[in-house]
């Protein structure tokens, strides 16, 4: 095996409205230029699992930055902060989009950045990813992992924090999109996934959806009964093949052509 090294640490950055925020940044220490990936956490918050995901990307040759989207709910252990964010309704879409855009800029400014940026999110972070891919400029590839409420069927699910259904912005999607879903999931349901796909087709977007039988919500999460090792292993392979194509191979082709 070739030499491996990575570095992971909490870094400060200026987020939405110049808010003093924080993120976990994991990056390879091996030579060469690398793409950046913004990793958007799920409702349980900026937890250990999301830092592990960031390190997984670093292991595979990406600089991965996972912002603490609940930072505005004060200091403390991530679970305590998430416990304060929950009754407050979570993070506002505008805050999340601003923080993600700031992370993208941070990743682009790394000395060994190759200029390509991906975004991936899980659960509520999957919804944020879909919204970012449709509304933020400069994303080269996006991965929505079981993002719920991309389609909102019940108006009661709207809130001041999540006042829009990201599906309405599909015509603006400006990057390739990968979707990972479990067919036993209820949010998003298979029907909602199908309707999202129809909307992507209607607008002629570059996308690929992978649906897994025998898997439900959060089937990557090895700490829960929902974990499905075979489906998760296959889906991770698809994630890395997708990012490799659009973030690594595409950058190499552009460098060769220059």
């Amino acid at each position, binding site marked *: 095996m070739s030499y491996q090294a990575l570095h992971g640490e909490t870094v400060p950055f200026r987020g939405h409205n110049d808010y003093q925020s924080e993120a976990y940044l994991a990056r390879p220490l091996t030579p060469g230029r690398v793409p950046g990936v913004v990793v958007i956490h799920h*409702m349980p918050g900026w937890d250990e699992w999301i830092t592990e995901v960031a390190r997984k990307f670093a292991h595979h040759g990406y600089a991965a930055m996972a912002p603490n989207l609940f930072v505005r709910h004060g200091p403390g252990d991530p679970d305590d902060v998430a416990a304060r964010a929950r009754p407050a309704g979570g993070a506002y879409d505008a805050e999340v989009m601003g923080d993600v855009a700031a992370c993208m800029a941070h990743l682009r400014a790394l000395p060994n950045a190759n200029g390509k940026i991906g975004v991936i999110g899980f659960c509520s972070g999957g919804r944020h990813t879909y919204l970012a891919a449709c509304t933020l400029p400069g994303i080269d590839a996006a991965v929505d992992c079981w993002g719920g409420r991309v389609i909102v069927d019940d108006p009661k699910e709207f809130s001041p924090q999540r006042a829009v259904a990201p599906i309405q912005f599909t015509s603006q999607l400006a990057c390739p999109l990968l979707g990972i879903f479990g067919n036993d999931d209820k949010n998003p349901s298979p029907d909602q996934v199908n309707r999202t796909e129809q909307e992507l087709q209607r607008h002629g977007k570059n996308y690929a959806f992978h649906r897994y039988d025998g898997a439900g919500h959060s089937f990557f999460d090895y700490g*829960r009964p929902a974990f499905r090792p075979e489906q998760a292993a296959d889906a991770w392979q698809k994630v890395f093949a997708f990012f490799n194509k659009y973030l690594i191979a595409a950058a190499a082709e552009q460098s060769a052509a220059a």
Partner: protein
Amino acid sequence: MCSYIVEKAALSGSAKGRGWMKIDTAHVYYDHPFHAPLDHALGIDFINAANGGRERVAIEISAESARELVRAILSALESGEQEHTAAQAASPTIAVAG
């Protein structure tokens, strides 16, 4: 799924985590837990909202456990209140001469 649905209960009492603290509110929800190895858990955060709610005493338990806990709470209240009511009735009263 990630929900933000939280039931709030007004309380009067204390809870002990790192140390004792006064509590006035319970946030109750059923969603992904942080620590318990469950897909969904009933979570209760006991906080002192009047004091900013920064500290909490928390539990994450299975739905079945939550229902058992509710049953045990109601049972303990019923039997305990009966005991204390009976004890009060049996205790000698002091007659005060007029």
